[in-house]
Each structure stands twice: as structure tokens, then as C-alpha cells.
């Protein structure tokens, strides 16, 4: 007799058929829940803003560290004072042997350029320090070795440097290879520290964000417990009862993402000048990398997921076995 019941043939097999109004009914329910959630949240704007702020801070810190890491990485790439290596030749090294090493370095794809300094050039350079020239004149031979300095091309890193060093160390005529990698190494290490710190903070603050949403969703559940009991009594499914709170979770999470984005852009404004000075001395085209739509998208998505997690946690704790009467 009622629309809400299934066909007669179904009834014999399944006395309480699932409602058949189907997708449209589900859609209507989602719409209703969304509207109610909005109403409920706006009625408690103070609390909602506080939750947004808390979740936002929790997201902003690791996200900010991520940006810093991305930019440090970019900085080492764009760095003008690129790392390189110096090869010092034996004093008795033959010209062909020296030529061979220089050509090998020049021919390598990861090398930007090679400067060769002959023994004579080295001496001339040395003698320009007047006070020392006298000491050298006491010697019969030129004690300064010829050397070649190779500078890495952009995009090549520590691994390339090491490979080049290994390649030429054993070449005939080479006395010593000195790799100038400290700066690059340091930046790489710092980036690594920041990335690990970011992961740690991300985990901790992620848990924090989940707990904050869980707590506020739980409060929302408590405030509506009476209604939930009635809903369950008149036949609302667990899904229907949980739904508004999942919406809360998403709402808090997305709001947190928004606050995080605002906090990050605020911090960028604050550090812009000193950062330009810092980065500008190593690279001409300063542009903060990573703060783009896809970064924001991921930020919001993570916020939303954390929010839903918090809501699920609260719903499970409070609605798992809700006593109706």
C-alpha cells in the first residue's frame, strides 16, 4: 500500500526490503544533511572558527616545511656558485696525459666547463703575491702543479661529482683530486633534515588535527543525541545517522586547509624580503616554488581526509552502540 515498500513478490522473500526510492532518495538525503550541517555549524560559528584555526595550524606547519624543502632543492639546482672539482697533476705529468684528463672532463655531460691552469700560469698567479715570490726564486724548479677545475652543469648533483672524481683519480698524471662539495652537501643534508622534520611534524600534527575534529564532532554528536535516538527509532540506518557528522568532519578539514593556506601565504609575505636576499645571492630568478594550485589541492584533500577520519573516530566511539531508549 505504501510507496516505500517493495513489490509483493519481494516481500515474501524479504519482509523488510530496503527502500527502493534509490539514488534520488539518497541524493535528497545528502542534500538535506548538507543543509542541516551548514545550519548547525553556522549556529556555532565561534567553535567552528576555533576548530578551523587549530586544524589550520596543524596543517600549515608541515606544509610550510614541505615548501621550504622544495625550495631548498630548487635553490641548489639554480645555484650560480656551482660545485665542482679540482684536479692537480703530478709535476712530471706529460702534456698528452694532462690533455687526456682535461678532454675527458670537458666531454662529460654533467660538466659545465673546465678551466686549465698550467704550471707557468700557477707560478705567475703565485708570484703576484709579492712577498712570497722571493722564496720561490730560491728553488730551481717550479714547484706548483698544473691543475684543472671543472664546474658542474645545472641539474647535476653530488653523485655526478663523485663519479667524475672516481673517473679521473686513477688517470695517469693525476696527483690529487679535490672535490668541492661541502656547500652542496650541507644544503642537501639540511633539506633532508627538513624533509624528515616535516614528515614527523606532519604525522604528529595530523594526529592532532584528527583529534581536534574528533573532539568537536563528538560535541556535536552529544548536542544531538536525543535526535539521533529518535532517528534510529524511526528506522534511520547507521549510515544516515553518521552522515551529518562526516559532513562536519569534511567541513572542519576543508576549513582547516583554507586556514593553512592563508597562514602559509601570510608567512611568505613576512619572510619575502629576507628570503629574496638569501636566495637572490645564489640565483637570479627568485620564485617561490611549490605554492601552486596542486599544492593547495593536496592541502585541502589532506585536510578533508583528516577531518573525515576524526569524524569517523568520534562516530564510532559515540554512535557504535547507541541505546535508543
Amino acid at each position, binding site marked *: 500500500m505504501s510507496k516505500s515498500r517493495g513489490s509483493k513478490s519481494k516481500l515474501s522473500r524479504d519482509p523488510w526490503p530496503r527502500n527502493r526510492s534509490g539514488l534520488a532518495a539518497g541524493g535528497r538525503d545528502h542534500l538535506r544533511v548538507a543543509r542541516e550541517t551548514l545550519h548547525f555549524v553556522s549556529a556555532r560559528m565561534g567553535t567552528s572558527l576555533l576548530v578551523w584555526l587549530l586544524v589550520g595550524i596543524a596543517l600549515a606547519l608541515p606544509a610550510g616545511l614541505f615548501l621550504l624543502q622544495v625550495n631548498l632543492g630548487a635553490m641548489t639546482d639554480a645555484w650560480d656558485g656551482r660545485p665542482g672539482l679540482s684536479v692537480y697533476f703530478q709535476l712530471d705529468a706529460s702534456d698528452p696525459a694532462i690533455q687526456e684528463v682535461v678532454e675527458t672532463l670537458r666531454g662529460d655531460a654533467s660538466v659545465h666547463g673546465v678551466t686549465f691552469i698550467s704550471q707557468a700560469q700557477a707560478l705567475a698567479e703565485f708570484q703576484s703575491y709579492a712577498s712570497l715570490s722571493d722564496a720561490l726564486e730560491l728553488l730551481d724548479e717550479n714547484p706548483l702543479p698544473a691543475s684543472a677545475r671543472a664546474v658542474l652543469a645545472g641539474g647535476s648533483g653530488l653523485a655526478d661529482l663523485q663519479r667524475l672524481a672516481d673517473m679521473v683519480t686513477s688517470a695517469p698524471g693525476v696527483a690529487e683530486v679535490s672535490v668541492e662539495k661541502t656547500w652542496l652537501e650541507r644544503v642537501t643534508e639540511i633539506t633532508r633534515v627538513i624533509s624528515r622534520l616535516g614528515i614527523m611534524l606532519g604525522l604528529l600534527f595530523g594526529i592532532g588535527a584528527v583529534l581536534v575534529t574528533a573532539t568537536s564532532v563528538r560535541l556535536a554528536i552529544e548536542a544531538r543525541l536525543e535526535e539521533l535516538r*529518535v532517528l534510529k527509532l524511526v528506522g534511520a540506518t547507521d549510515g544516515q545517522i553518521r552522515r551529518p557528522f562526516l559532513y562536519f568532519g569534511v567541513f572542519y578539514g576543508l576549513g582547516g586547509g583554507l586556514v593553512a593556506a592563508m597562514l602559509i601565504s601570510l608567512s611568505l609575505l613576512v619572510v619575502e624580503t629576507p628570503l629574496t636576499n638569501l636566495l637572490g645571492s645564489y640565483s637570479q630568478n627568485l620564485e617561490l616554488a611549490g605554492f601552486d594550485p596542486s599544492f593547495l589541492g593536496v592541502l585541502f584533500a589532506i585536510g578533508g581526509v583528516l577531518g573525515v577520519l576524526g569524524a569517523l573516530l568520534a562516530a564510532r566511539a559515540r554512535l557504535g552502540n547507541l541505546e535508543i531508549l
Partner: protein
Amino acid sequence: MSQIEFHQVSKRFENGHEALRDITAAFEEGSMTFLTGHSGAGKSTFLKLLLCLDRPTRGQILVNGVNVAQIPPVRLAYYRQNLGAVFQDHHLLTHRTVFENVALPLRVVGLKEKDIGKRVRAALSRVGLLSKEGLFPRYLSTGEQQRVGIARAVVTRPKILLADEPTGNLDPALSRDIMQLFEQFHQFGTTVIVASHDRELIETMDARIIELSHGAVVRDETEYASGEVLSDESHHVEV
């Protein structure tokens, strides 16, 4: 097969108290039954088991031939959508209008807004409260609030209507009105089971009376002739 069958149903709570003992009873589709007995006799427990708000310790409760204790949790909601329930404490939502309170079960089912309006107004006019649909429950009298609860219970046109002390807070005249409402729904073909300790009232009604005492059925008789004087024997069974 009756619509509702209790087969040797017992309910023992965790504290060891046995609220129902070996209850066997059948309810035909469209029948009307009063469940009576002293306070603590087990009337509410009986209805709760039927609503699947709790499960029997022993025995079976069959509704349409299905053992309700074995309905999986996910389907319980659909089972309850087919029942109407009214309580002494009517459980109305205070921050929603009369209309919204009555509409709740229909929203759960996902009916279209247009159909919800029609159905809610039909239910409200059935209980005589059409003019109050926009009010909040606190502006209604206790009797009116109870009738809103009844409208909410019947708005989905359930096949089975259960009520637990629906007249508990009401004076005799209002109580009679409420019982007559249940009588009406019974006339429309709904199976009605009303728990009430108000023996004076229910014995003036044309309905079967099941009396519980300390969890056991001590009287089960059907009154069909209106105004007939009741056989008094079982009254002495009370402890």
C-alpha cells in the same frame, strides 16, 4: 502463521533479573491488543524486544515468519521503518516544528518533499492537529504532544503500531481520546499493541487484553462484545 508470534520468549538482564518468562503469544494482522500488568511486569521489555531494541535471552519472536532476533544489524533499520512506535515520553524534538517532527520518518525513507507534505498533513489531520503544524512542541499541551508522537508513528503507514504507556501523563478524558485514536488505526487494518497499566480504561475498550505479572502471562482474553462485563477471575491472580 500469525503476523507476530512469541515462542517461549524469556528475557534475563545482565543483573540476573528475569523480565520476561516463557512468553508465548500470537497476534493476527489487524488485531488490537492491550498489554497490561503492574509496574515492572515486563510490558516495556515485551515491546522493546518486538522493536528489536534488545534481544530475547531464549525463545523466538517471529514477525511475518522471520525471527527478528536474527535480522542483521544493517537491516534492522528497514525493519523499524515498517513499525510505528509511541512512548509515554513522546520523544519529540524540541527545536523542530510539529510538521518537522512528524516528517522525520519520511525524510529517513527519502520521500519527495511534495509527498512528505501530503503525508504529514494527512497524519496531522488524523490526530486533529493540522492547525498546529508550524508550532514548536513546547507550545502544545501534553495531550497534543502525545498526538504529535502518534502522528509521527503512523505517518509511514506502518503495518504494526506499538505504544508504551501512551496515556501515562494524561487525564482520563484525554487518555480516552488517545486510545480511541489507536482504535481508529486498528480499524484501518493496522496491528496495534498498546502497553498500559490503566486497567479501568482498557477494559472499556473492545480489544484483547494480555496481562503480565512478573514477566509471565497471567491472563489472555479477547473482548469482542462492546460493553460486556469482564470475567473477573484473573484479577485475583495478582500477587
